[in-house]
């Protein structure tokens, strides 16, 4: 018992000790809280400015395809020496220099000191359906320089694009002699005389004298001796070579090159008050900021105030920088100008140096008749464009609708001006940014690079950048000049899921590429504005002379209103979506499909539910058409075509509905679109020919086009009778009676029952004075017209229950003289009565 008690005591003691030890240990451990580390995410902190990629972001990916597409260009093959002239980078100019409809590219190079080889040359690439072809060697452009900016401008008004290039220390002008062959006319034009650190280029007919004037930025008064003795400066907390700080140099005056119209230029910057000598100019654009139709000027200056000059349309300018609140002192590089918020005025986006945020100057509405200058507020932070740039140095940029949803998105390419600490010969790369403009009322820009392709996920040292549709598939692609690296060609994959309209404006004289023309595009979703050639970037030029509009869910472009640079306005439309509209002022616009997506357009929709919806909608259209409600039918066909743009039958029926409704120009687009997708479609060519015959819309009447279309049909199938009839009719209308008679005789032989062929043959004979033949033909025609009413057996191929073919009443409107034969059976007159009238 005692023993037992003792044992129990021992056990109790040990137990208690253990418990105590455990508690003590626990206490000890509890006190050992993890040490706070910098950057740790602790509780209690929220970040309302950080926005994740929204779930409904566009399913668009940019793929880097430069090598595959033949755009093989390596920038600045030399070794960086920490000189300012080697670090500001270069740009790219885009434009159709050979007039083949495919955009060509000029890539500016920075040549290493003393180099004169191919690798250091700037290069010209011609675009085409198969990609790019390097034609530098035969182009006549032999440029080895510290190249900066470039712009294609038709300075001599000969309808082809000349090339203006800026570099340190000279500007160059290359005249396009046609066929993408250029001559260096810098000396003759008087632009070689100017010395400076030439950068950004703006182009417009500022004085409306019919030729294009240029504004050229001078960055700084560069002095190679700065830093040569090894001085250094402090920047961003680091000690760096003095050359890398632009503030180490004096600002320089810019050029305003007035085109004298004789191939020479004169600098009028000082006399017009736009020299901006206090600014270290990099970016510039001519754009109509105040909406008065005249070109205004905005200049983005590095470490100095930006400047806004309002133009008066006669070559005079007025500095309103301070009043407009757009002149803040930051390190500005690239700029973009567009009406991003749809309030019908120009807004400005400026890219800045590190820790400065980018600026989004939204123009505020002014009361009608307010004579004051426009007013801007920086809305960058409010819409997600400010703080996102705090740790980036931004360059090339543009408002562009990369997903064709109808709202302008934005890209910025970035890259530091300061070398990496570990590798002082290399600049520090930075991730470029792609912003999707969400369709919410806040106009928020979501950064979506993370889901939009590898390019946006990796850091680069980028400078120039410009947009175009290099593969003509209906969405905006990008070319980016990577400093000291390979140029990137970013193919937009998926943007063309939605339709776009590309407008190419041309003028028959003067400024052929209509710089500054204001284009208003009207769809069921409303009107949208853009201006030709005013978008800006950094040392770069977007595809010149054209604008792309994403159309969102619109099924038709109702109208295009163009205010040409001289202030006159023209309207045209409607247009099919997914079109390239080439509009030469004063002529009917030419409407074509995007050649780069012909295959995709004719393939059935990728998703079965879309295909099902397509056929349901198409059926709805057909039912409406057969019920006589052509408007509803047309609307349904347009809805169906949004799902399957290259559907032949749908285009054909749409065309027939529209022809009957009187919108013959749209009908013509539909038939031409079908012929584009199905060049073998004799149905399409026949209707094109019919639309070109007299009757209905007189602006479409064109015998030559009609003949070409019918000849195409005849070539497709010479055994068919109707093209022969119509070729006969065209020849008759062209007063080529012998030709007409031969065609109609062939037609009559091919189709033993053709009343039409015989009636027209009679008419031709009558016109030729062969009365007997006319009578004979008419008698034959009349006999057949009579037979036609006889009942059919209903057991032969083509028989119907009524005995007559179930053709429609509607169709292409024709002049009465061309349809008179149809009711021949109701008349009994002799040839004189039949044909004499």
């Amino acid at each position, binding site marked *: 018992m005692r023993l037992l008690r003792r044992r129990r005591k021992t056990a109790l003691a040990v137990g208690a000790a253990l418990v105590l030890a455990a508690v003590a240990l626990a206490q000890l451990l509890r006190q050992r809280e993890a040490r706070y580390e910098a950057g740790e995410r602790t509780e209690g902190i929220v970040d309302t400015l950080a926005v994740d990629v929204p779930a409904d972001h566009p399913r668009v990916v940019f793929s880097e395809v430069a090598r595959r597409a033949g755009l093989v260009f390596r920038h600045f093959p030399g070794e960086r020496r920490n000189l300012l002239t080697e670090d500001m980078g270069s740009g790219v100019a885009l434009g159709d220099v050979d007039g083949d409809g495919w955009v060509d590219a000029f890539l500016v190079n920075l040549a290493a000191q003393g180099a004169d080889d191919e690798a250091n040359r700037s290069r010209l690439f011609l675009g085409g359906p198969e990609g790019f072809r390097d034609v530098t060697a035969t182009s006549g452009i032999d440029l080895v320089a510290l190249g900066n900016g470039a712009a294609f401008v038709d300075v001599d008004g000969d309808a082809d694009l000349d090339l203006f290039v800026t570099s340190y220390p000279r500007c160059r002008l290359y005249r396009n002699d046609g066929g993408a062959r250029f001559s260096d006319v810098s000396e003759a034009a008087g632009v070689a005389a100017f010395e400076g650190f030439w950068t950004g280029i703006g182009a417009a007919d500022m004085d409306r004298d019919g030729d294009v004037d240029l504004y050229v930025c001078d960055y700084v008064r560069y002095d190679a001796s700065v830093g040569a003795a090894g001085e250094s400066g402090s920047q961003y907390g680091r000690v760096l070579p003095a050359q890398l700080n632009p503030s180490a140099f004096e600002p320089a005056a810019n050029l305003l090159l007035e085109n004298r119209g004789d191939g020479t230029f004169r600098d009028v910057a000082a006399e017009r008050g736009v020299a901006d000598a206090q600014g270290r100019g990099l970016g510039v654009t001519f754009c109509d900021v105040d909406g008065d139709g005249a070109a205004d000027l905005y200049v983005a200056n590095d470490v100095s105030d930006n400047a806004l000059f309002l133009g008066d349309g006669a070559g005079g300018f007025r500095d309103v920088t301070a009043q407009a609140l757009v002149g803040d002192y930051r390190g500005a590089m690239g700029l973009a100008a567009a009406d991003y918020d749809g309030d019908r005025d120009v807004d400005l986006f400026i890219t800045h140096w590190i820790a400065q945020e980018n600026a989004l100057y939204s123009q505020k509405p002014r009361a009608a008749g307010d004579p004051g200058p426009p007013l801007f507020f920086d809305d960058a932070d409010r819409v997600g464009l400010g703080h996102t740039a705090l740790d980036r140095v931004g360059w090339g940029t543009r408002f562009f609708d990369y997903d064709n949803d109808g709202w302008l998105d934005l890209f910025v390419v970035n890259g530091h001006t300061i070398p990496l600490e570990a590798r002082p010969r290399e600049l520090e790369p930075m991730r470029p940014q792609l912003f999707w403009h969400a369709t919410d009322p806040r106009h928020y820009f979501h950064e979506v690079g993370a889901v939009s392709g590898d390019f946006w996920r990796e850091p680069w040292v980028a400078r120039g950048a410009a947009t175009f549709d290099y593969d003509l598939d209906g969405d905006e692609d990008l070319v980016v000049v990577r400093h000291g690296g390979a140029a990137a060609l970013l193919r937009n994959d998926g943007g063309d899921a939605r339709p776009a309209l590309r407008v190419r404006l041309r003028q028959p004289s003067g400024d052929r590429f209509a710089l500054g023309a204001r284009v208003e595009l009207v769809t069921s979703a409303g009107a949208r504005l853009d201006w030709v050639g005013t978008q800006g970037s950094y040392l770069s030029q977007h595809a010149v002379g054209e604008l792309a509009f994403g159309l969102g869910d619109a099924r038709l472009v109702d109208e295009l209103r163009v205010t040409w640079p001289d202030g006159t306005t023209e309207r045209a439309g409607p247009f099919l979506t997914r079109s390239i509209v080439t509009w030469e002022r004063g002529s009917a616009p030419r409407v074509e499909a995007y050649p780069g997506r012909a295959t995709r357009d004719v393939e059935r929709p990728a998703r079965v539910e879309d295909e099902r919806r397509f056929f349901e909608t198409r059926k709805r259209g057909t*039912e409406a058409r057969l019920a006589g409600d052509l408007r509803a039918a047309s609307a349904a066909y347009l809805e169906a075509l949004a799902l399957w743009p290259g559907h032949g*039958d749908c285009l054909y029926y749409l065309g027939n509905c529209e022809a009957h409704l009187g919108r013959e120009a749209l009908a013509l687009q539909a038939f031409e679109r079908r012929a584009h997708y199905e060049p073998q479609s004799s149905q399409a060519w026949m209707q094109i020919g019919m639309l070109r015959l007299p009757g209905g819309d007189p602006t479409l009447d064109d015998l030559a086009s009609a003949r070409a279309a019918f000849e195409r049909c005849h070539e497709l199938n010479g*055994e068919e009778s109707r093209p022969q009839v119509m070729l006969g009719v065209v020849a008759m209308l062209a007063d080529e009676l012998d030709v007409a008679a031969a065609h109609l005789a062939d037609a009559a*032989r091919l*189709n033993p029952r053709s009343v039409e062929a015989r009636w027209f043959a009679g008419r031709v004979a009558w016109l030729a004075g062969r009365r007997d033949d006319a009578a*004979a033909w008419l008698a034959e025609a009349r006999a057949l017209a009579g037979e036609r009413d006889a009942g059919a057996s209903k057991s032969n191929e083509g*028989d119907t229950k009524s005995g007559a073919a179930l053709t429609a009443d509607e169709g292409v409107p024709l002049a009465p003289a061309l349809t008179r034969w149809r009711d021949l059976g109701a008349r009994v007159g002799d040839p004189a009565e039949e044909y004499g009238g």
Partner: protein
Amino acid sequence: MSKRSSEEWNDQRLAGWRDRGGRWVTGGLLYLTLSGLVIYLLPFGVFAQHSVVLHTLVGLLFLAPFLVYAVRHVRAYWDFPLTHVKFSGYGAALMTLACSVSGVVLTWQSAFGTRIEYLWRTVHVVTTFGIVLLFGAHLVALVLRKREAGGELARAARGFSALTLGSSAGLLLVTGALTLVLRPVSFTNEFPTDYELTPYEGATPFSPSLAMTASGGAFDPRSLAGSESCGTSGCHQQIYEEWLPSAHRYASMDVGFQKIQSVMAQQNGAVTTRYCGGCHDPISLFSGTKNIGVDDLTGLSGYQEGISCLACHAIQKTDVAGNANYVMAQPERYVWELRDGPVAGFLSEFLIRAYPQRHVETLSRRMFKTPEFCAACHKQFIDEEVNEVGWVQLQNQFDNWKASRWHRPDSPERTIECRECHMPLKDSHDPAAGDLADANRSADDGKHRSHSFLGANQYIPAIMDLPGHAQHVADVERWLRGEYDVPEIDFKWTDGPAVPIELEVPASARAGEEVAVRVRIVNNKVGHDFPTGPLDIIQAWIELDVTDADGRVVFETGKRDERNFIQTGSFMFKAEPIDRYGNLIDRHNLWEMVGVRFKRSLFPGSEEVASFSFDCSGQTPHGEAPAVGERVAFDLPGGLRGPLEVHARLNYRKFDQYLLNFAFGEDAGLAATVTELSSAHAQIALDGGTEGKGL
């Protein structure tokens, strides 16, 4: 007479009842008789089929023991008085012998021949009943006697009965077990899950085709495919080989059809291609491949077999409305059909040959002889479901024929029906050779109807390189020219070319005179219009040239240019169907067809005249003189030297060049074969020289 004592006979009997051989042989005989009766009397079914196989096996095993036993048994009772027992015993033995011999013959024929013979089958059946009768009497008498005998003998007899009955019952039980375990291959008769069953109101799963399945649901493609098995078994080999390059066989794989089908799917919706499937591709149609969102509207076996053997032979009902207005059933399959492996293959063929009634009943029907049966597909229209406008008649050989001189309701023996021309009789070793029911034929004429289905397509079999196409195409061309002899209808068919032409020219002509040439074209032999549809793509035309004695061309028409198009303005047989807006149906887009501008073809027996005239002066260059009617001027190279030679030809091709270019691209360089169907030659003397005459 025997001098043995009754004890001795009793011992003999006891030994007989106890004899193991006797027991087994009798047991076998009993089973064979019972299973024979099962096969003969029970309706077609799995039990009966297994019985056939088991019956054959047991029968073969029974042969030797039976002979041994029979000899022993006869010898043992040789001295026995000729009682009714002995008499019935001899009778039963003879019957069994005859039955065995016929059984062996039938087995041999089923295993190694192509069919069993009616005579042997009759012997086998009749002797079976003989066995039942005589062997029954033999046993009944013995059993009665055994009762009288009692004791040991009765016990022996009971043992005898137990074994015989037991073995028979056992074998029948085995058959029953097999019946439960081994069933015919079951089909997956299901539409794909996303199959659009009623694309519009009132539609069947196969609309707008009028074709229907007997079940109203899907058919497993296997249930109508497998034509090869009909030919490779050695049974219908000739017919299979005829079918291989025939139009029925390539109805679906036809490159033209495939292209048009995909264009139709694209333009008018995949569901509407069911319209084509009823006649071109029934196997795919019924298995549900013609649906929205699919990549292949035609399934593999549908593609390979088109109108397979069963696609015709499994049709239960047709409506003369046409457009595939038929009802298709899935023929009941034999147990071993459609199974893999040599044993299954052997058993399948063996069973069909040994036990063919169901095979014959389901697949050979009187209906197949009628033109109305063919009309199911050889009469076509398009209705609102497809063209969305209204009813339009398309090719229609049936009504054409029905209204023609070849159809004589008043004298059926003079009527010529579809099969008589298009399926002429061929010398045959086919098991189905001979036909008692067909006019002019007998059960043993040793012929079958050709399954080449000779028609007018001399192009597709060649470009698709189908087996036997060389012979087939040669036959089709002879057919087109009317040179293919069909002796069995000689007495009621016309002679000569199918569509002969004649030239009418003036005897002589003078320079400066207008010369008229006429070509008469007669539909002499064709049972329907010549040419017959689809006339939007089929062409026949007159090629005519006039040359002088020096070979200089004075006039020509109907030539083909370097792109294979026929000279504009030629005299052609074809149609120009049109769409709603009066434009040509230019790529067989029948879904847009609402009528024709014109159609030129020749009704049976009728005649068309192509008139040409040319100016003998040579004053007007070719192609520029406007003229009424068929007047054509020519370019005269200089003075002509007579006589003028006039050659006319009637040419035919299956595909116009436009469609080929559309379907395959002009770069493919395809051109349809042109066959000259008939020709004529004449001379025209110049300046009143020799008389011109048709040659």
